[in-house]
């Protein structure tokens, strides 16, 4: 908004913020401040994202030509495995909750901090230890099971560093459990006076729903990985058919966590979009309670669909039918959200600032990702496209087109709150455009490739598929440019960016009522909430004064 830039000339950084309250390494590494921990997480997950991106680049480079000429197939197996493991457990699962969630949830509910600051700090250290195990596995030669660790491949046959990777994921899981636990207790017990459940911002609702999944799902992954480790280390036989064990049981236990984990990744993204759309449409969100409850519905239904990953694994027809049916049910709460966001736009006064561009991209890309998920939930189509690039394209539309785009939308939206500085608008808009184009160029051809039958996880393919693969690889390089740009101009803005002021977008929500950046305990005086969350319509258009 141009007014923000004009006024910012007169704005000054607040004197007492969480960033300048104390200095030195110890004041960060031993902090209990949720905002500092969030910033430490921003740095750590960005590094993991870059690492995962390097593996993705190598994968796309290999697929430029039909012959497997750049890497041996064993090396290629390692590359896509490590891309998946690093991206999912190092970036996507923690992403929005540990950064934006950590920073914003206490402020949004009107609290001085999360309920358990020490546990919050511990969760960061646990995450770092988990990542250290993963990095050790990567440096010492990597792992090639695929990110799913299917048994008995992972327990009997492979000699790569499965154990280290599994331990790393197990440890990182506890970090996730602690974050979820902290959010749940904070939302229940730490709300400011007047902050009722139905005045909570939808970002809080969706992170709350994601926390429920973290708390209920992650322990099952933990015990599954412990059994895999025991099986691999001591040959106990629970998943080994030679000893009477059942490998499909592993798949059940793995997907019991890993399907809901998809919703851990996407639900917080929904929350970001629910904040941005009303702000830049200058309109009250349409269907607040429908969006709030649909988050909870997704968390609940999400636990009842896991076997749709296993239609070809030999599960019974009846259970396949039921899992397919429940999969279709999950589409309902997801569609409720999309329709409500669209209805919010209707007759809104829409401003195309960078966060809004990302948010609009999210709606389109997530819808494609979600609808192709229904193709895969239908047993017949699933049989046809299982383990092809159709699946790869589908989940990248949800994970990258959905989650990553939502993360970028949120990082732009709250960057002024987190740092006190505005990101530069022109390059930011450009990056949103480049990401959108690059993303579609990368992954849309993969839908076609998958439908034609190109299997995933192979380093070579028949020459007639080269054109689409070249398009995809070209798109990946465009996408990489779009994703690297924010890293540079965000860092640039820390020093040279315009001072943002407390509320550069004239947004509602408690986080915009405190200073940018907020003081250590978030508010100089704990606010008393008297209004609903998205009261944009009572703001008259003439009030353009910022701060």
């Amino acid at each position: 908004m141009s007014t923000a830039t004009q006024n910012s000339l007169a704005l000054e950084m607040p004197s007492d913020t969480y960033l300048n309250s104390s200095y030195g390494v110890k004041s960060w590494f031993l902090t209990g401040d949720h905002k500092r921990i969030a910033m430490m997480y921003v740095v750590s997950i960005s590094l993991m994202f870059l690492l995962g991106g390097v593996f993705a680049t190598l994968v796309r480079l290999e697929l430029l030509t039909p012959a497997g000429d750049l890497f041996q197939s064993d090396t290629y197996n390692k590359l896509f495995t490590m891309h998946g493991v690093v991206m999912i457990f190092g970036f996507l699962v923690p992403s929005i909750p540990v950064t934006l969630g950590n920073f914003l949830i206490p402020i949004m509910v009107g609290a001085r901090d999360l309920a358990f600051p020490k546990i919050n700090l511990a969760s960061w250290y646990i995450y770092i230890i988990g990542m250290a195990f993963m990095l050790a596995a990567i440096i010492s030669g990597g792992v090639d099971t695929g990110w799913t660790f299917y048994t008995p491949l992972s327990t009997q046959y492979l000699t790569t560093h499965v154990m280290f990777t599994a331990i790393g994921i197990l440890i990182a899981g506890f970090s996730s459990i602690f974050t979820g636990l902290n959010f749940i207790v904070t939302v229940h017990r730490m709300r400011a006076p007047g902050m009722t459940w139905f005045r909570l911002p939808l970002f809080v609702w969706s992170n709350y729903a994601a926390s429920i999944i973290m708390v209920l799902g992650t322990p099952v992954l933990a015990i599954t990985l412990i059994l895999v480790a025991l099986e691999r280390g001591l040959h106990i036989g629970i998943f080994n058919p030679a000893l009477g064990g059942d490998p499909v049981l592993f798949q059940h236990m793995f997907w019991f966590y890993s399907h809901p984990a998809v919703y851990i990744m996407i639900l917080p993204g929904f929350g970001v979009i629910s904040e941005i759309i009303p702000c830049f449409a200058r309109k009250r969100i349409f269907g607040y309670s429908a969006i709030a409850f649909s988050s909870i519905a997704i968390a609940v239904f999400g636990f009842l669909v896991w076997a749709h990953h296993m239609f070809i694994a030999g599960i019974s027809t009846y259970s396949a039918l039921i899992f397919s049916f429940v999969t279709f049910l999950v589409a309902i709460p997801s569609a409720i959200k999309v329709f409500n966001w669209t209805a919010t736009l209707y007759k809104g006064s829409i401003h195309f600032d960078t966060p809004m561009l990302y948010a609009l991209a999210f709606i389109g890309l997530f819808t494609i990702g979600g609808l192709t998920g229904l193709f895969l939930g239908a047993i017949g189509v699933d049989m046809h496209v299982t383990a092809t690039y159709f699946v790869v394209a589908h989940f990248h539309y949800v994970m990258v087109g959905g989650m990553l785009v939502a993360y970028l939308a949120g990082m732009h939206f709250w960057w002024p709150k987190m740092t006190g500085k505005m990101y530069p608008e022109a390059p930011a808009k450009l990056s949103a455009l480049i990401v959108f184009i690059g993303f579609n160029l990368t992954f849309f051809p993969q839908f076609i490739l998958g439908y034609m039958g190109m299997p995933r996880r192979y380093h070579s393919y028949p020459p007639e598929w080269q054109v689409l693969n070249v398009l995809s690889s070209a798109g990946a390089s465009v996408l990489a440019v779009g994703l690297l740009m924010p890293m540079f101009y965000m860092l640039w803005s820390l020093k040279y960016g315009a001072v943002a002021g407390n509320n550069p977008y004239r947004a509602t929500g408690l986080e915009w009522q405190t200073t940018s950046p907020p003081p250590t305990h978030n508010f100089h005086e704990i606010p008393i909430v008297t209004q609903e969350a998205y009261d944009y319509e009572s703001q008259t258009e003439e009030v353009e004064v910022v701060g």
Partner: protein
Amino acid sequence: MSDSQTTTLQAAHQHHDPSLLVQFDTAFQQKDASQFGMWVFLITEIMFFGGLFGAYLIYRNLYNPAWVAASSSIDISLGAINTAVLICSSLTMAMGVHSAALGARKLLVFWLVATLALGSVFLGIKAVEYHQKYVEHHIPGANFDFNYDRVEKGEKPIPADVATQTSIFFALYFAMTGMHALHMIIGVGILIFLIYRAYNGAYPPHHYTMVENFGLYWHFVDIIWIFLFPLLYLVSRSPVH
């Protein structure tokens, strides 16, 4: 809430007992939040053990004859004694929480030491049981042989395929009781810490949430055993009809 109330809250916040952490407004909120947090943590624990219970149920149905043979080979009397020991330790723990609420420091220390003693007895008996299984070659892995000493003991060897399947029972037996024992060991560690702190008077009647939360944890670990004992020792001894 009126302005005057807010001022009171903040005033109360500025000069009060140091045990009230900065993010909380009142001691009640602090106690309430940490207890709620403990309950959420226990729910994660239920899911953790739930995975094992699920695997147990599936294999019990698949391999019932192996389950009967393997379950019958476990020492029921040691398991029963351990169950009694653990239930008593829950009683002493509850008495400890009660003493903390009353502000009886010496009693609190006494009950915590009693809990520690009973917990250690449980772990000792468990170690004896594990050793028995080791001697009988019933630990899954390279040395596993269910029929190893059955002939010497005057029992009929069971068919080879069933004997192989018993290793799944024992894998789950060791995973389940092992995870339970790990929780006990962690509990014993925390107990030692609590005893030291309680002796120094760290848990006055208005600030003993730590003891209460640990009590919840200890009872939870106890309840896990209350499910493990019948599943592993009792109900699988006779075949399903």
